[in-house]
């Protein structure tokens, strides 16, 4: 071990921090290491999920790379993530700005804005969301009144993905809460000073709010990216991955291989490829924002 200089408060040894994170270390050893390791090993086997895995080396990985279905799922998942995450961050930040206002009845609005997120992937929500986009459904009726032609939402790959994106966008509550948590921490004197300097609302938003929110923006960016990459239940229940696999995410692929096709060895290999993909994405996010957020972990 290198002789590092630990920047701790006076009188605090280098093991205090280690002691504090002990719950995580123990939990990791007990509940994370084993499934991860098991999954890595099984990724190198031909395994039906029940009996006797057979070691086959990296065959699963080479199958995966040559599989158009896998490449398709990676493309769909990335596309979905890149569309959803920026939209969700923008909407949740705007909502948080609105809900930060000190007006009467704000609590009711806050609860209403969060309601969709309470529902998550509840079966009833899926029934409802399906209904919204059926031909002749509410969305169709709305577009008709505006004079737009009625489109088939589910039959086209792009609009089918949009249905899923809209569902998850509608459930922006968790990101909004974190923004709200942070917004209240910006001292109002900052805004007053800015007003004295002649800054309008918009300019003080870009000059004060955004820079001061950089940590929580980063936080939401990372958490929402991870969540979007893992998307499974919405396309599984609403579109079934179709049409023509255009909403078939990696999460669905892993599920299908694991449980429907009893191809657990391959499913585990895909999970590890997925793990690497998410790691790379998160590392990029850390690298890009390092300077701006002074991330030093």
């Amino acid at each position, binding site marked *: 071990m290198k002789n590092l200089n630990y920047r701790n408060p006076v009188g605090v040894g280098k093991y205090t921090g280690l002691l504090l994170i002990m719950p995580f270390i123990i939990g990791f050893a007990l509940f994370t290491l084993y499934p991860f390791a098991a999954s890595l090993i099984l990724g190198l086997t031909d395994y039906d999920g029940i009996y006797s895995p057979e070691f086959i080396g990296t065959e699963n990985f080479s199958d995966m790379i040559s599989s158009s279905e896998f490449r398709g799922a990676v493309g769909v998942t990335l596309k979905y993530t890149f569309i959803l995450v920026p939209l969700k961050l923008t909407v949740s930040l705007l909502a948080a700005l609105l809900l930060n206002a000190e007006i009467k009845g704000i609590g009711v609005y806050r*609860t209403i804005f969060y309601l969709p997120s309470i*529902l*998550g*992937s*509840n079966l009833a929500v899926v029934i409802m969301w399906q209904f919204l986009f059926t031909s002749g459904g509410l969305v169709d009726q709305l577009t008709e009144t505006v004079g737009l032609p009625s489109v088939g939402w589910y039959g086209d790959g792009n609009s089918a993905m949009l249905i899923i994106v809209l569902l998850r966008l509608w459930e922006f509550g968790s990101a909004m809460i974190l923004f709200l*948590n942070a917004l209240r921490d910006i001292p109002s004197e900052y805004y007053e000073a800015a007003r004295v300097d002649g800054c309008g609302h918009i300019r003080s938003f870009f000059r004060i709010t955004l820079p001061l929110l950089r940590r929580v923006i980063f936080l939401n960016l990372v958490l929402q990216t991870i969540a979007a990459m893992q998307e499974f239940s919405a396309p599984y229940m609403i579109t079934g991955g179709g049409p023509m696999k255009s909403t078939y995410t990696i999460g669905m692929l892993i599920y299908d291989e694991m449980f429907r096709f009893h191809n657990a060895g391959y499913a585990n290999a895909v999970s590890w490829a997925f793990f690497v993909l998410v790691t790379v994405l998160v590392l990029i996010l850390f690298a890009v924002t390092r300077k701006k957020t002074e991330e030093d972990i």
Partner: protein
Amino acid sequence: MKKIPLYILMTLMAVVMIYPLLWLVGASFKTNDEIFSSAWFVPESLDLSVYKRAWETVTPFSMGHYFLNTFFIIIPKTIFAVISSVLVAYGFARFDFPLKKMFFALLMGSMFMPAIVTVMPLYSLWSKIGLHDTYVPLTIPALFAAEGAFVFMLVQFFRGVPREFDEAARIDGCGSMRVLIYILVPCIRPVIVSISVFTFLWTMNDFLTPLIMISSVEKYPLSLILRLSADSTGDGYEQKKIIAMSVIGLIPSVAVFAAAQKKFISGITAGGLSG
């Protein structure tokens, strides 16, 4: 007067957010046929008997029993998650120690694997020590900061609290734990409320882990009961009953959120994230 446009904007948004839910409540009174044929949420007739049937469930127990089951899981889980996440996040945010970067990488990494991959090995682990079909697998992991996202959230917010606060307290003779309890925790109280609420809501909705871990119907949490009747392989199901059960199931979540929402923003305003 200045606030009127704000109200209008927020009300418009609120309508978008809430309409589908009104529809949902309305749909619980509609027949399968009516559900899909009408976009208007008000049902043709108001027949409350569906709620009675939903409450009774097809099992020997009523939904009340399953609410209790869920709370037996949620309450310890929330307490465990908050305490362990705060401690671990404090360690990462304020101290330097050997292999810190590696441990943080492991923490982040543990969030990246899809749950469906890890749940089966975990099940075989728990069943080997005979603790499957108990609430232990659903609650105990929370003692060990199992939700990496919470630690990550707390780390980010801890780092927003200026270090000068800690130092001042240390000069006054506070040890590390006292700094945490008396200085840092009050500063980020809204975040702690948030993660408690997240734990509550996410556990209410969690389906896969209880499905695999719990096999006795009497021990099912609510999320399993909500899907108990949703089966298309046989005679199909009555959608309004499923929807009615979901609506009942939402009540505690909405209540908890409404009660907690004030606390999301009323931390001690102390510089916070303006680091």
